[in-house]
């Protein structure tokens, strides 16, 4: 597994991203983080992990494979998440001007290195 902090710091170079955390999927606890001031990493970790877990159940119920990427869109930005194996989730918080397409590609690449 590559150094997670370095991967997160690379993510932070994507325009509009306010930070990213690597989260334990089962606990919603932070494993590693790279966050701008003002972003509540613990809240990001706990809430995103819980959302991903609920989505896993919903997609399983729909007979689909597990989520590989999600974007929760809101007025003030987005929460992006991708699983890194069964135990971890990579989460990023994006502002409204973020390049989500690039963030997605970077996150999927990072997830592959972490898993």
């Amino acid at each position: 597994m590559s150094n997670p902090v370095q991967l997160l710091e690379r993510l932070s170079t994507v325009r509009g991203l306010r930070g990213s955390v690597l989260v334990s999927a089962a606990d919603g606890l932070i494993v590693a983080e790279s966050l701008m001031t003002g972003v509540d990493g613990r809240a990001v970790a706990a809430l995103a992990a819980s959302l991903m877990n609920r989505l896993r159940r919903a997609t399983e119920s729909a007979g689909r494979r597990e989520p590989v990427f999600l974007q929760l869109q809101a007025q003030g930005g987005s929460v992006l998440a991708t699983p890194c194996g069964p135990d971890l989730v990579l989460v990023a918080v994006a502002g409204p001007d973020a390049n989500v397409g690039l963030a997605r590609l970077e996150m999927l690449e990072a997830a592959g290195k972490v898993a």
Partner: protein
Amino acid sequence: MRTVEPWVTEPLERFLAESSARLTLLMTSAGQVVAQHGFTRSVDVMTAAALGAAIMASTGEIAKLVGESNFLSLAHQGARQHVFLSAFETPRGRWIGLVVFDAESTVGLVQLFFERLVKELAAAAPQQVPEQQVLPENFERELNASLRALFGR
């Protein structure tokens, strides 16, 4: 949910709604119950309160052993249910929270919302009331009054 202290009600209701906790107990560090949610028998409440207070007391001793001032919280992971215990300061002294949760929540969420509960309790607590000495003859009357408040009987 039942509380002995009315000002605890709203913050605790918000915590329960957000955390999806199955059982919650707030008690003083001496094991006196302040509020409970989810318990159906008073004997379970008393047992949980006594054990929770004892666990936190033991944890405090371990902290001293390793040179820490204190360990404020700990979590136990079970197969289906999990326990989160945390001590916190209130204007009424040190309290302990015991939270039992299952797959509907995570320790991260419980911790997150427990911290908010602590802040809200600090803000909601009325001004300090002079502590009344608990005399043996008052103790049983106070205990029974607490149980009635907690179980609505």
